């Protein structure tokens, strides 16, 4: 049975406006777009012990999804449950009480640690507030967590500014682990680190995963990082999951035209001077997503059906693709332009 269930989740953000602006718009006869469709009908499951990678470009909704799973945002539609229990209790559209069983690790370790708190206090704060660890044991527990993430226990009495970016990210991981979470959400957790430091933090994550049997949602724009740490990967585009597959088949043979194009635009080490095959066009605005398949304006295989009908995420063997090319009943294969 899966640990985390994301069931038909959508999230819309609407910019509030005052009466005067609305009145002016009425006079001018405009109806401006002010609803961002950040997530549309996303359903995913994560099994205990699994790491699910979430990949996409800006505006694809990957961070919004992470925040909804962590209970920071309430979904507009749908539900997120952990072992059948909702991750957040909401009242009037905002989160009122959220689970401590999901912990988040953010991108910027310079912003996510309180600069005035000793790191030991930062790590101990959560378990103390929630009474997870008896007060006399807190100091030992902090020391154990620090050594678990590869830092000296004596560092507990230092302040964040005394640490480098990589060390701060280790502290952020220790703080998350202190809550003994069932699920970690890592949102671009290694994106701001230099590559040699990134390797150290990725190794730490893999060690912890093995030792603690972690379950995690690993959100990143970096395809090679996600490949390295994930079991399965969901590719997102403009608020929807367009492809979902185990790592090996996905990277060996991506099925969705967007996934294919994304993989083709990533420069790879050791392949010499590349002949680039960039995706044409820009990412559409989530304020005004195109009708039908959101990728159709940039897709080389787009046909009439793609402009009107939204493709559903349909399972094929161990994987799922949301593309009309793969939803023809006649066993359509990749790369053919039958729909063109």
């Amino acid at each position, binding site marked *: 049975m899966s640990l985390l269930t994301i069931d038909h989740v959508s999230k819309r953000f609407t910019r509030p406006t005052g009466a005067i602006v609305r009145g002016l718009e009425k006079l001018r006869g405009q109806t401006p777009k002010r609803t961002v469709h950040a997530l549309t009908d996303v359903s995913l499951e994560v099994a205990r012990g699994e790491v699910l990678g979430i990949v996409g470009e800006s505006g694809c909704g990957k961070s919004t999804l992470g925040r909804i799973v962590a209970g920071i945002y309430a979904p507009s539609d749908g539900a997120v449950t952990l072992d059948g229990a909702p991750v957040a209790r909401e009242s009037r559209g905002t989160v009122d009480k959220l689970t401590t069983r999901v912990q988040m690790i953010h991108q910027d370790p310079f912003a996510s640690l309180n600069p005035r708190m000793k790191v030991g206090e930062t790590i101990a704060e959560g378990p103390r507030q929630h009474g997870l660890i008896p007060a006399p044991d807190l100091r030992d527990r902090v020391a154990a967590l620090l050594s678990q993430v590869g830092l000296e226990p004596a560092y507990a009495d230092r302040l964040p500014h005394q640490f480098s970016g990589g060390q701060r990210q280790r502290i952020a991981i220790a703080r998350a682990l202190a809550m003994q979470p069932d699920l970690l959400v890592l949102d671009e957790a290694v994106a701001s680190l230099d590559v040699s430091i990134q390797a150290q933090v990725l190794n730490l994550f893999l060690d912890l995963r093995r030792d603690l049997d972690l379950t995690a949602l690993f959100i990143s724009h970096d395809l*090679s990082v996600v490949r390295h740490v994930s079991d399965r990967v969901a590719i997102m585009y403009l608020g929807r999951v367009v492809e979902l597959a185990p790592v090996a088949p996905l990277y060996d043979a991506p099925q969705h035209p967007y996934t294919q194009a994304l993989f083709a635009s990533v*420069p790879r080490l050791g392949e010499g001077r590349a002949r680039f095959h960039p995706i044409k066009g820009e*990412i559409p605005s989530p304020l005004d997503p195109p009708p039908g398949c959101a990728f159709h304006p940039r897709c080389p295989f787009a046909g009439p059906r793609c402009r009107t009908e939204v493709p559903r995420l349909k399972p094929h063997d161990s994987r799922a693709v949301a593309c009309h090319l793969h939803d023809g009943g006649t066993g359509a294969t990749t790369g053919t332009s039958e729909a063109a």
Partner: protein
Amino acid sequence: MTAALQVRGLTTRFDTRAGAVTAVNDVSFSVDPGRIMGLVGESGSGKSVTGFSILGLIEAPGRVTGGEVLVEGQDLRALPPDEMRRMRGRKVAMVFQDPMMTLNPVLRVGDQMAMAVQVHDRVSRRAAWDRARSALETVGIPAPGERLMAYPHQLSGGMRQRVAIATALLHQPAVIIADEPTTALDVSIQGQILAEVRRLADDTGTAIVWVSHDLAVVSSLADEICVMYAGRIVESGPAERVIAAPRHPYTRGLIASVPSSHAPGGRLPQIPGSTPQLSSLPAGCPFRPRCDRATDLCVTEPPRVAAAGRTVLCHHPLEVAP
């Protein structure tokens, strides 16, 4: 053939409370017309300061203390400030990581590009706008006429960066210094810009110095690579050779840290420790405390080993098959 850009012994120091810090230490390289040189390094390696030093954009407490910067044979460092200003934008241009450092938010794209034309060339406003339009076409911007009328905030990040690149191209400079120009962009947009830049170097003969922390980007774009560590170039050579067969232990470590070069889920080989503080560098080789090949010899200044178009700053360079 004269190199478009030749840098010899460039040294830049910053006077800080903790004492003088040498951010760029005896850096030398050259780039031929139409070639792209990738300047790679991690945070604090001095790669951006090198770019700024070339253009004479270092401000107090920093100061370029030595070396030559020859653009088409002319030493920029010997020029008086007003002549240097005439060189900037005309012979040497810069593209920044954040295009809003180049673009004025309250001027139309066309107005500010035309201004950049008229600063150096006595042409009519109309001719200047025409040049701006063709520069936008060169970098693959669709409907350039409309973009000229737009304000920077009306453009996407990728589009703004193209405008910044087009502005750098206005005077067909001999050299463009590009400082992390695609770092803030999405991969699909980065792919488009890399393709345009490669084509521009080939077509216009402009030499490009591409400063980046991203080895994969540099290896897919550049002809030559210089790897910087603690203010020095520790390895340089043809891009394919440096990536396929690194000779400096730091370059090897850097390449090995990239996840895509390993089977998923395995441990990544990591460089121990972290990048050193420039104010407290160890004596001799700055990489010594993190290096598995270090010996007692490394306490002395590392020698520059040069062979077959490659240089390595190391007492114990890795052997490569000839």
